[in-house]
């Protein structure tokens, strides 16, 4: 063995040191330290273990209510349902938060919903892929200035597809200016591109094609369709096997069409899975409402972000989930933040351009449309609730402890003035009118002079 290098000698250094001189802290202090901290650590272990178990139980309970691909959502009146409710009600605040969180999750994260979405996309795949091919052909023959090659002709099938597209787009009242110009071009091509070109629309058609490129199967949907293809390929039913073969083509992004029988089967299955998912969501919303009632009754502190999240669920796409959330929000009406956030949502008449961006699945326009619909739903629910809360406050203001210095002023600002501000909004004008009228009547019905609508009274 060679002589150790300086580095190796350096690494040996610890051995050459003197031994430790012992703990510097006095023994009594060290002992005290152990006496305090060891029991604390033991307590922490118990506390954290208990919290872990509790979280697991709550998650499991929510999962049982929600159901899954293998299990149906539980009936809350059944023994199992009652047991689940007991578990959830034992941890009021946490259960309420878990219920809200579950309702806030993206629907495609649920396997049933992913399957439903995949099947619905598969049903429309024939049409979408045909339209995509047509646009592709047009783009291949179109110049930058929008003119089309002289030799380019539209066959009967292509013409039919284009005419259907044009009719559908013309019937859609939400089409933007740019989208209408694209429709003009499609119509012009369908008519055999007579006369002058419609302008430099190639870029816009290319954008339309990008939108079609987003309509392929992706992430959870693709996975769901892949699983379905595997399961149905092994099924004795020839319709399922045929559908499975078509799914394989679709996953490879090739043109494919389902037979009417297969389409029927897919539609039926999609309805079933979405129905199960829907039921689960409604049950969770119902539990959320029940928990909100108990939270309000017991006066448990709810931080304002939790109220915000719950109230924001008023934009949920299922009517019955929304009505459950609205009922739960009504129960939380004595909290100033419920009124603040309802007021915020009622007066939020436009969507947020920062959040309405192009996504992997949606074009910017499609995303904006979805957000606008959701926002409109929430505005309507918020206005209706604000109106009810306003009437209730005016009639029973002594029952409210909003935690603000001037509650009447607060109600004037966040309910009456806020609603008056958006009275001309087309989407909610009817509800605003009703709400303001009801509040005025309630104010007049009170003993003494009116407090909130003095000028108009």
């Amino acid at each position, binding site marked *: 063995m060679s002589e*150790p*290098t*300086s*580095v*190796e000698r*350096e*690494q*040996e*250094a*610890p*051995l050459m*040191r*003197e*031994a*430790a*001189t012992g*703990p*510097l*802290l006095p023994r009594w202090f*060290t002992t005290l*330290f152990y006496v305090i*901290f*060891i029991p*604390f*650590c033991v307590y*922490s*272990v118990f*506390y*954290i273990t208990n*919290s*872990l178990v509790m*979280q697991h139980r709550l998650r499991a309970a929510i999962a049982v209510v929600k159901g899954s691909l293998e299990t149906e959502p539980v009936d809350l009146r059944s023994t199992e349902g009652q047991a689940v409710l007991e578990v959830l009600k034992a941890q009021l*605040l*946490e259960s309420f*938060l*878990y219920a*809200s*969180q579950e309702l*806030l*999750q993206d629907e495609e994260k649920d396997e049933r919903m992913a399957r439903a979405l995949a099947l619905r996309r598969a049903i429309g795949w024939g049409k979408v892929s045909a339209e995509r091919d047509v646009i592709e052909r047009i783009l291949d023959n179109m110049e930058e200035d929008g003119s089309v090659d002289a030799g380019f002709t539209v066959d009967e099938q292509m013409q039919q597809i284009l005419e259907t597209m044009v009719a559908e787009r013309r019937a859609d009242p939400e089409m933007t200016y740019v989208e209408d110009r694209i429709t003009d071009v499609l119509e012009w091509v369908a008519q055999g591109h007579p006369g002058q070109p419609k302008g430099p629309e190639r870029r816009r058609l290319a954008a339309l094609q990008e939108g079609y490129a987003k309509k392929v199967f992706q992430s959870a949907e693709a996975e769901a369709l892949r699983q379905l293809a595997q399961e149905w390929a092994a099924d004795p039913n020839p319709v399922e096997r045929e559908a499975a073969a078509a799914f394989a083509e679709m996953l490879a992004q090739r043109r494919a069409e389902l037979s009417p029988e297969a389409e029927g089967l897919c539609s039926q299955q999609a309805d079933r899975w979405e129905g199960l998912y829907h039921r689960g969501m409604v049950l969770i919303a119902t539990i959320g409402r029940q928990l909100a009632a108990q939270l309000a009754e017991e006066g448990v502190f709810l*931080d*304002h*972000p939790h109220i*915000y*999240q719950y109230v*924001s669920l008023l934009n949920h796409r299922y009517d019955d989930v929304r009505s459950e959330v609205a009922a739960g929000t009504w129960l939380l009406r004595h909290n*100033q*933040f419920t009124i*603040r*956030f309802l007021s*915020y949502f009622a007066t939020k008449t436009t969507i*947020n351009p*920062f*959040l*309405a*961006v192009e*996504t*992997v699945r949606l074009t910017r326009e499609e*995303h904006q449309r979805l957000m606008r619909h959701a926002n409109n739903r929430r505005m309507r629910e918020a206005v209706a609730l604000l109106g009810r809360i306003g009437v209730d406050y005016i009639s029973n203001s002594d029952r409210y402890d909003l935690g*603000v210095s001037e509650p009447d002023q607060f109600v004037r600002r966040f309910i009456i003035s806020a609603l008056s501000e958006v009275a001309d909004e087309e989407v909610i004008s009817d509800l605003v009118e009703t709400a303001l009228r009801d509040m005025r009547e309630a104010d007049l019905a009170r003993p003494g002079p009116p407090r909130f609508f003095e000028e108009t009274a």
Partner: protein
Amino acid sequence: MPEEDYLRLREEQEEPTEFAEGWGVKALLAGLFVAFVVMPGSMFMWLMLGQQLGTPAVWVTLIIFLEIAKRCRTTLTRQEMFVIFSVTWGVLTTAIPVWWMDTFVGMTYFVRSDAAVQFEIANQIPFWKAPPPGSEAYIQRSLLHRDWWPQLALMALFIVWGRLSFFSLGYIMFRVTSDVERLPFPLAPIAAKGVTALAESDEETWRWRCFSVGSSVGIVFGLIYVAVPTLSGVFLRKPLYLLPVPFYDFTTKLQDVGWFRAVPLAIGTDLGLIFWGFVLPFWMVMGQFTAAVLGRLVLNPILYRVGVLKLWSPGMDYIQTGLANQFDFWLSFAVGTAVAIALLGFYTSFRQAMKAQRERTKTTVSTLAPPKGRGDVPITVALLFYVAGTFWVIMLCHWLVPKFPIWILLAFGFGYTPVMSYVSARLHGLTGHAVGIPYALEAAFVLSGYKGVDIWYAPVPMYDAGWGARHFREIELTGTKFTSVFKAQLVMAPIAVGAGLLFWSFLYKISDIPEDYPFAMRFWPRDAQMRAFWMTATTTGNAFFLKAINWRFISAGTIYGVSAYTILRLLGAPTLFLYGTITGLVGDPAGAMPMFGAALLGRFYMQKVFGAERWGNFTPVLAAGYGAGIGLVGMGAVAIMLIHKAITMVPF
């Protein structure tokens, strides 16, 4: 640098022969001086120019106490000076965190910022982080309002926890990497060198001359850069800037030229960058320059032309251009390069660790025995501190964010943190720098499916205690007993919190921060935008986040990092160049040019004049002197400004 060279550095370091107590009345007075005299100035400088008085304040305090000691016919020992250094730094960082949003006034701005409103998170910030919307605390502009109390209580708890983690896990890491593995910690002597320069001030040594030269330059430059704008603000309606602060922006001036589209063009005007260019390794500065200037200059216009940079539009200045490009490309690329750095860091550390282990089993047996009189505590006490502290934080975090999975907190507290701290301590020990797993926390939040903004503010027990090992090595090199630092931290932390709260309240009452402060007005909105953007990852409106996080660009960043490292290794070129390019690509490019000039000057002129080794010794002391000079000027100017503001405050 080969591993042997790194290890040889340890041999060259002067090990102390004995350890002495550094904590006492002098250190206490220094702490009070910093808390009540230096701190308001530091806060003001931070808001005005984006520079804390951190390091300069340390040196200014040391100079003042040295001079007072001389006139009292006494001396300051090296150990006392180091504890003053430690106290000063501790007090300032406690009251003025690195990240502005961690301050009270930062939160008052963020909650009401356009970014928080645009991304719809303003209403989702929990009560324990900032008062709820409509709170009287905002109307009264009072940080002492009871709506701030939860945040105040939590801040105090976090400070205690921060100290606990330093004294426990940081100490354990030091014992393992420094005592047992004998790693060199190449950057640790820099702080010690600065202290030595002042301790030997009675003799006319090269250190004192260097320090004086640096100070003189700092004072002259500080007069132009800090004093004139600050003092002119007292007399004139608009402050007079002889130099643009903190950079000269010519982004909008050149963007009509095709090849400058979407290029953030600016040059840093702070002379401190030159001193940093002297201190930092040459090849790292070269890498930074290549990436920051050439990379941005060439890549951005190309990315704009191919349609990757979509948000940029003509008229955007340096800050806006940088922000737009971040969202379109550089953020994802930065995530990718961070992943590459982590992969390479782990690879290097693992390789070195394996080699060292093989050698050790052949020739040595490790021991945890500490040297005599250093002030060590039993390792079991440190371990117990760490375990109890982590449990406590997990319970607190669970209480604040009850629906966040507790097993993730456990995994971070007892898995990620100790492992990463060890890796980081080893990297500090070998290279002076450390890497962590990038965006691990963000990934955990997103993948957990959690919905809510509160988790971003929760005290998740994920931290890197590896720097603690380096700090303990610094203490050791100055011959200071560890217990001195323990005592100093214990006494000074509450004073720092109290003084910080007092002066923040004072500044907040004077004006609605960031109003009236040029740097904060310019940079806070940008930072708020980035912060709000990250938070949208756990809100329902996360489309913008998902759009900005592009897997292709992340992969491109990772591939770039790994392949460039491989090529440089094959060519035998310095890998520091690669790390430089990565920091240059993802960082702020304004400082790259001055640092590049300084690095060239140092390498090709100064080293020839003074010799490579001497110049290497000079640069950290010069930089410390410069900081002290500019700090002195800044404190003076700011004191006048504060007095003026206080006496001219109108009651409406």
